[in-house]
């Protein structure tokens, strides 16, 4: 289970959602970055961007493909990960930690209940 932390929930589109209080940290999984290959550019929505559950909140470019990033909850972007601007490879090296994408103030958490827990996600990708 080393590659799928148990402290968060997972979507079909391979984002992870970690909730602490009313702040949600969003990222993509090890499985997702392994598929993407080397990440070259991350463009997330800016703080203040409001969105509904299931909306696109940014785009990740890799050498191989361009991938939209979805958030299962609705809310407002409060911070994007500045470290990824200079070092997009951080997303490949530490997708579940330092390579997080955005922090979100949640206004609609209902979509999170449809997400998978770590065990279920692990079963799906292996």
């Amino acid at each position, binding site marked *: 289970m080393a590659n799928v932390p148990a402290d968060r929930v997972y979507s079909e589109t391979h984002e992870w959602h970690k909730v602490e209080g009313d702040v949600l940290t969003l990222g993509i999984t090890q499985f997702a970055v392994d598929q993407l*290959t080397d990440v070259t550019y991350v*463009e997330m929505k800016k703080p203040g961007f409001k969105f509904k559950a299931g909306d696109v909140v940014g785009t990740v470019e890799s*050498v*191989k493909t361009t991938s939209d990033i979805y958030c299962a909850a609705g809310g407002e972007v409060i911070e994007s990960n500045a470290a990824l601007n200079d070092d997009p490879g951080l997303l490949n090296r530490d997708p579940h930690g330092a390579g997080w994408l955005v922090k979100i103030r949640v206004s609609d958490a209902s979509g999170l209940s449809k997400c998978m827990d770590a065990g279920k996600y692990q079963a799906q990708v292996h």
Partner: protein
Amino acid sequence: MLKTPLNAFHRQHKGHLVDFAGWEMAMYYSGLVQEHHQVRNSGGIFDVSHMGRVKIAGRHARRLLERVCSRRISDMEIGQCRYSLVCNEQGGVKDDVIVYRVDDDEFLIVVNASNREKLMRHFEEVRKTNDFTLKALEDRTMETAMVALQGPKVMDLIGKVSREVPTLKKYRFAVKNLLITKIIVSRTGYTGEDGVEVILPAGMAVDMALKYLLQGVDMDAPDAILKPAGLGCRDTLRTEAGMPLYGHELGEDICALSCGVDFAIALDKDQGDKGEQFIGMAALKKVAAEGGPARKLVGLVLDGKRSARPGMVVKQGDKDVGVVTSGCPSPTLGKCIAMAFVDQALLAPGTSLDVDSGRGILPAVTSPLPFYKAAKKA
């Protein structure tokens, strides 16, 4: 899923395995970009066993190939390879292939994995229609393996085991005897680098042949001359080299004259000694006589970090003027590059165009292909 004879090799080197045209292949091993640079700067070994290998031999082998290939076959020498298209009657592209002339009446054709079965049916149909007599029309893919060794240091490495191979000109091959088996070594590739492609018997012989070719190179050493390279970097390398890929720049509905490989289309091939019409020739002659296809393949260099991707529309102002076929951030050039079919009038290098990503406009300028050319050795 089909497994190539190098499946154990992929696993041993921790390949990230994916389904590619029904084959279990390595997308990358250590990392796509790292492998890309390894091939440009030193050398990489690719498993390309998924590609189809078809033997055509017998009295009418040459004539069958003249019928299906867009390039002249009859003037090929034994030991020569030739890149060609296989077209349909409408002048679209069924596949691009490499023809090896093994003997006067024996050829080997290397075809794309996804088109292998389609081409076997096509060749068989052409044989029947023309009542050609053949000794063999055999799909040899499963009985053989194929590896590509590509990069500026590959020929030095090969020179240690063969005096002959480094003297081969581009698009020539040698048949080497290795104990009881034969291997075919050709000076060809799909990366824009110098190197060879090697066809060898499947089974036990693969290990033996690899050992022979690699001469004890420890591919896991950090500074190894040669390292495993996956299909991921094969795609970025061929894109930089401006080489077309079936399903992107080539397809049944794409006019052969638009794909940037006019050198491989001999519209005069019915003239002269042993001249013969090829399938699709009449349609292509008509297109040429009417001023060529409406759109042709061109390079695009993008401004910014967003990459163009296949299917994105190319615009000039509000007007649709083309479509992107391949695109990636180029590891060698450090900027995003793409290939696209663009209206004839806008092909001049330096023409400013826009790529519509669906989420905004990516400014681009047209560029000649290839984007990258290997430095000539002194």
